[in-house]
């Protein structure tokens, strides 16, 4: 895929290429997994709850991300084979559309994770009023608002990507959301820990220290996965904006395809840590597969 030839003159960081088979496999697995989550939630009436709707929203944004990468690769292949011209208007529009799809996926992921964290937070700290605060209708309204906002911003960012003004908020949004989600989960974690201590104080119980370790591990996994999968790409965008000619930055940018693959890996890992931890969803899966056999 190295189109311009003159870059080989200087000893440099060549573009790290991810084999297409790996790319397509990762993307396909991601799409399938998230599709399964969606189907399971739609089919099982027990799962028509705000919490699962937010998980579905996350699944949709993950699917969009993987779909984007797959389509992009397909278009590269078509381009190489000569079916598509490189300078056409149609291709440009297609490229714009795909860019906005990717940004939509990123924003959708961030906001879905935020919604999931907020929903869990409300479930814990406003437990008795949870049903009144988070009704099904409200959850759907929240999702509609989130996706409208994401769609609008993604189109705006894709159209005006040459302005600095779009890149900065985009890259600030990411750490901000991360930090907010971290605060929510840490607060929940603190409560869980104090709760465990109270239980340990009871005469009839025996709480192991292990259980709190598991909580720490779970939290670290949530936030670590999100960070490790998205941060490399966000850094790439920042560097591409501010120091494209710097050799160090250029070397970082040469691993762009690896960063893209990481994002697709995030699409594979997210259902495992959010959706599949629910026993109800797992049993729905088992029923689905057992019926088809």
């Amino acid at each position, binding site marked *: *895929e190295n189109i311009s030839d003159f870059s080989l003159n200087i000893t440099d960081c060549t573009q790290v290429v991810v084999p297409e088979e790996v790319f397509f496999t990762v993307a396909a697995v991601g799409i399938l997994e998230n599709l399964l989550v969606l189907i399971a939630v739609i089919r099982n009436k027990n799962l028509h709850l705000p919490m699962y709707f937010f998980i579905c929203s996350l699944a949709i944004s993950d699917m969009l991300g993987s779909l984007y990468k797959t389509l992009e690769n397909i278009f590269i292949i078509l381009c190489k084979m000569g079916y598509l011209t490189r300078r056409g208007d149609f291709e440009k529009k297609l*490229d714009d559309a795909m860019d906005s799809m990717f940004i939509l996926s990123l924003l959708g992921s961030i906001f879905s994770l935020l919604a999931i964290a907020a929903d869990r937070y409300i479930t814990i*700290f406003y437990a008795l009023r949870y049903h009144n605060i988070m009704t099904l209708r409200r959850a759907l309204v929240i999702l509609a608002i989130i996706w409208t906002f994401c769609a609008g911003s993604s189109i705006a960012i894709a159209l005006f990507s040459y302005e600095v003004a779009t890149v900065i908020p985009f890259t600030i949004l990411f750490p901000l959301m991360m930090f907010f989600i971290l605060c929510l989960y840490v607060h929940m*974690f603190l409560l869980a820990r104090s709760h465990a201590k*109270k239980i340990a104080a009871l005469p009839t119980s025996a709480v192991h*220290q292990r259980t709190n370790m598991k909580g720490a591990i779970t939290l670290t996994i949530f936030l670590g996965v999100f960070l490790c999968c998205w941060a490399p790409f966000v850094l790439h965008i920042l560097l591409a904006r501010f120091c494209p000619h710097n050799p160090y930055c*250029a070397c*970082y940018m040469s691993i762009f395809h690896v960063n893209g693959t990481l994002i697709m890996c995030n699409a594979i890992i997210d259902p495992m840590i959010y959706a599949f931890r629910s026993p109800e969803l797992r049993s729905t899966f088992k029923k689905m597969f057992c019926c088809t056999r």
Partner: protein
Amino acid sequence: MSAPRLVSNRTSQQALSNSDYTWEYEYYEYGPVSFEGLKAHKYSIVIGFWVGLAVFVIFMFFVLTLLTKTGAPHQDNTEPSEKRFRMNSFVADFGRPLESERVFSHQIAEESRSLFHFCINEVEHLDKGKQSHRGMGLESNTHFQEVPRSSGRFEEDLNCLTKFNIPNFVNTEQNSSLGEDELLISERPIILESKSVMQSSHRILD
């Protein structure tokens, strides 16, 4: 990608001319970049970034585990909630012998690894032959999982909440608002169906 277009707009001589847009998947042009005279290793940003990320995640993990071992900021609220908790455990079953009360409280302690109050229905009083065990968005303090519940019983849940005495393990902030709820003594004693309870607690602890 927005990234390649930015770069190609800046580095290529044609400013914003659409007709010169080329659909390249190189993401940047190497031409102007010179790799001579580098002081540090050329992949230093990559290495630095990943090392920093790993350090941050490990640091976060250690902070969380340290929080496990040190004192809780919620401990000033321990006493009133403990009293509330004990009252909740024992208040419902007046007619039962002491043993079953202990069993009740023991089972409550077991289940209360989750953060939420259970709304436990007794078989004879609701549906003959139907065992229903529900929690409200249950999440354990160890795993962020959920105990299944049927959404069709939404109204029943609400009724359940108002009528039953719900041991509330959650709250440290809304003490006043929960006072009335906790003192509600249900007319129907709460009898635990041990099988469903054990199943659910196993699911949570799983």
